[in-house]
């Protein structure tokens, strides 16, 4: 502690203004708590600034270009020209609008905003270093703290991010020009989403993946349409190859991969993007000062009130563990704020939905048939292929399907998996059904608008019940 330093006090100190942190701050402000939100970079965190929002902006923009250029079947002949600068400007406009909105909402809810990097300095105290050298620092004493410091991309040995040749996902989303060729290390959802973006921009994309499958964590039948579409877009997917090193080649770089068997391959490219996952940011906080220790992966363990082992310290969002999803962090932030305010809040959701914005999209929520069986249910499955959907045909995207999983005896909807057009949106209906404890009958008895893609959810429920009209029943 600095001699003569006078600390300001606050009810709730929140470290990090990402989706977990800003939601916690706004909710705590609504609940009449005195809230201080510390952010070192930009309001909105990774999601708004370097993740979900910019990537989805670019996915949409490149999608428009790609669609327009590939619509001969619909009688459209176009050759879209992409102005990368314009596209980035539009993307940044979207981001600015959202981050500005977060800042305004925080202020409107009485949240004190402090810029800087927070470090614990005792059980009820943090030290916030403002900006760079000479910018000074301040101490803040708190009753409760919420750690919402998020995550950062994982680097792999030999592939340190430099923003020039070796890019993180954040760098890739800020590129000013379209690279001619790109090696993407990692075929997870970030790698596959960005593979789609750059392929549609005309980049020659190669994806190398150490594991034997792309999109691990998703069932094969969900991953396959994505892999097929990527290949149709010209993306080369190399499985079972681990990136082992790279070197300058004059014109660009050569990325070397190695198989388990020791076989080496070299890929020439302009840049390499490393997207092998994200690690929680807990190393900047001096957690030792309050006696908290992250687990081996860097996460802070929390209970169903988002509380760490310390009664007055909470952790939300990516630092609180998998899945690292903004909407999970938002819920945790809300619950943490409500618990601090003495409300009977808890993390008792039945399912966390997830979406991958590849082409086609993947959306999942709740239990897969296998998981349902493991949990002691007798699962029944209903499925509807998009090729049987009138609306899907009219969009030109008929790949994929909707699957709904329910308990055969009670009919309760337990989960769903969708791959196909607008899967990220459509999954919400199944999520709602899971949360409400709705049955297949409930979904089937709900009239869905025709002609829409959501009819596929309805039809899947009918299919599970054995009276689907537009498909053959199971």
């Amino acid at each position: 502690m600095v001699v003569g330093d006078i600390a300001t006090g606050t009810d709730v100190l929140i470290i990090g203004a990402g989706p977990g942190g800003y939601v916690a701050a706004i909710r705590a402000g609504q609940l009449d708590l005195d809230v201080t939100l510390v952010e070192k970079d930009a309001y909105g965190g990774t999601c708004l600034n370097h993740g979900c929002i910019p990537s989805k902006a670019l996915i949409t923009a490149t999608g428009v270009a790609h669609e327009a250029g590939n619509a001969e079947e619909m009688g459209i002949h176009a050759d879209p020209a992409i102005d990368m600068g314009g596209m980035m400007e539009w993307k940044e406009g979207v981001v600015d609008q959202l981050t500005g909105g977060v800042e305004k909402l925080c202020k409107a809810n009485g949240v004190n905003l402090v810029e800087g990097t927070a470090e614990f300095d005792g059980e009820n105290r943090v030290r916030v270093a403002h900006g760079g050298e000479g910018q000074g620092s301040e101490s803040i004493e708190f009753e409760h703290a919420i750690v919402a410091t998020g995550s950062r991309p994982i680097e792999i040995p030999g592939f340190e991010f430099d923003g020039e040749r070796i890019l993180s996902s954040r760098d890739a989303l800020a590129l000013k020009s379209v690279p001619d060729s790109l090696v993407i290390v990692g075929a997870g959802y970030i790698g596959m989403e960005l593979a789609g973006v750059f392929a549609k921009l005309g980049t020659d994309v190669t994806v190398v993946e150490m594991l034997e499958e792309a999109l691990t964590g998703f069932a094969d039948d969900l991953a396959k349409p994505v892999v097929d579409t990527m290949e149709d877009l010209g993306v080369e997917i190399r499985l079972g190859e681990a990136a082992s090193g790279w070197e300058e080649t004059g014109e660009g770089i050569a990325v070397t991969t190695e198989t388990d068997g020791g076989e080496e391959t070299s890929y020439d490219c302009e840049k390499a993007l490393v997207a092998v996952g994200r690690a929680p940011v807990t190393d900047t906080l001096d957690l030792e000062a309050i006696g908290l220790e992250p687990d081996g992966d860097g996460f802070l363990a929390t209970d169903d009130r988002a509380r760490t082992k310390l009664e007055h310290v909470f952790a939300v969002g990516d630092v609180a563990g998998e899945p690292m999803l903004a909407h999970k962090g938002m819920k945790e932030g809300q619950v943490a704020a409500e618990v601090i305010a003495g409300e009977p809040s808890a993390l008792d959701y039945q399912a966390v939905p997830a979406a991958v914005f590849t082409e086609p999209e993947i959306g999942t929520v709740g239990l897969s048939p296998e998981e349902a069986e493991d949990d002691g249910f007798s699962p029944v499955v209903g499925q509807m292929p998009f090729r049987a959907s009138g609306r899907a045909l009219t969009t030109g995207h008929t790949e994929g399907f909707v699957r709904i999983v329910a308990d055969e005896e009670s009919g309760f909807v337990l989960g769903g998996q969708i791959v196909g057009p607008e899967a990220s949106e459509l999954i919400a209906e199944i999520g709602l059904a899971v949360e409400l404890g709705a049955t297949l009958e409930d979904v089937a008895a709900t009239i869905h608008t025709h002609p829409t893609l959501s009819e596929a959810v309805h039809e899947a429920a009918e299919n599970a019940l054995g009276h689907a009209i537009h498909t053959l029943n199971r």
Partner: protein
Amino acid sequence: MVREFKLPDVGEGVAEGEIVQWLVEPGDEVSEDQPVAEVETDKAVVEVPSPVNGSVKEIRAEEGEVVPVGEVIITFAVEGEDEDEEQETAESEEPTESQEQVSEEPADIGDGSEPIETSAGRVFAPPNVRRLARELGVDISSVSGSGPSGRVTEGDVRAADEGSGERSKGPKQFDAGLQSATRKAGESGEGDGSTDDTGAVESADRDRTLAAPATRTLAEEEGLDLNRVPATEERDGEAFVTPEAVKEYAQAQREAKAADAQAVSEAGTGADGEPAEREERVPYRGIRRTIGTQMATSKFTAPHVSHHDTAEVEGLVEARAELKARAEERGVRLTYMPFIMKAIVAVLKEFPEMNASLDEESEEIVVKNYYNVGIAVATDAGLMVPVVKKVDEKGLLQLASEVNDLAKKARERSITREEMQGGTFTITNFGAIGGEYATPIINHPEVAILGLGELAERPIAEDGEVKAAHTLPLSLSIDHRVVDGADAAAFANRVMEYLENPTLLLLE
């Protein structure tokens, strides 16, 4: 929809109650707070009020049956609530063939009666219902769902809260029931199950018997306890009694009684010419059993030591005689009890370990800095212990009037549980009936009890002379785990000092 009503917890330590009498029948319309049953619990007969407006759907406990707290005793069909849900429940109660097949399997879920729970422990309920459960402190995994396929609804959570709420909220929830407790158990007439105990025909004596309402009425008319009627059928694995079985059993009972009477008259008659029964069996129930349980707990938990002594109380007799007339002018009957209470409280302040209890679980002696004195009162139904609160803050007249008032309520059985709780020390006045010494059993978990013998003139020796003087025999029992014999003797000596010189009380 159907609302279940569970026997509420009526206070500390009460685990069960006896259904004395049902005041309603299936099909009856009831309004909220209307008494539906009389339940005899620990030392009080309470009227249980309906929690809802609606009609009685099913009565699940027999009169005379002892029901554990938390068991559903009656169900109501609630008007104005979702009719579809009612249909759902009704249907699920009468399983179709296919449902029956399903229900044979162990993983029988979705029958509408139990919460849907899997090995993963999932309960199906919408988020707003989950939140409500958290707000009310209801464990949603223990709530029976009445929604489709057993989904837990808002109503289910509220019903669970009402059913168990009394446990956590205690007196507040049950006040209405207690305040209406004005009836003596003996006045309830039928349902005490004592009329058919002489039967020579073997009785069944089950805990639970299924029967149609008309059969129940028939059994009532015959004065029979359905649980004793031999059953010829089973429904859902439980004994089911038909009207024919009731008639047959009633006839057999009458014949047996007639045979007994004849046998007795042949063997000789009683002094009044009436046949005298050799023995009679009276159910060990209600208050009698509660007293028994309490006494046994105390006797076998706390090692009792009794200390006896006699106070010479001429001073007390004079003081009371002097004040009695003044008290009567103010409409108060002044007994010796308030003096004794004041004396005891004065001494308890000197011996705090006597005004204590032992918390066995946490291994702590809980010394009370408040003085609530229980006064054991003999009533027709048995011993009751009303508690006079804050004795140290009250004057003689106020104590006299409170003691009189509480004793009257106890005898009339209109006393509430609250008026019998919270004691820190107990006095038992067996001397009011006569006698000198006894071994009082401590009112567990208190650690001491003072028994009073009869205040009477007795011979005492003074300066080598025997003379008559008013004396009061004292019997003090202590829990030897907490209090030692020497302390008991010192305590008794100080009490005697106050009783022999009541003017000392003026210093208090």
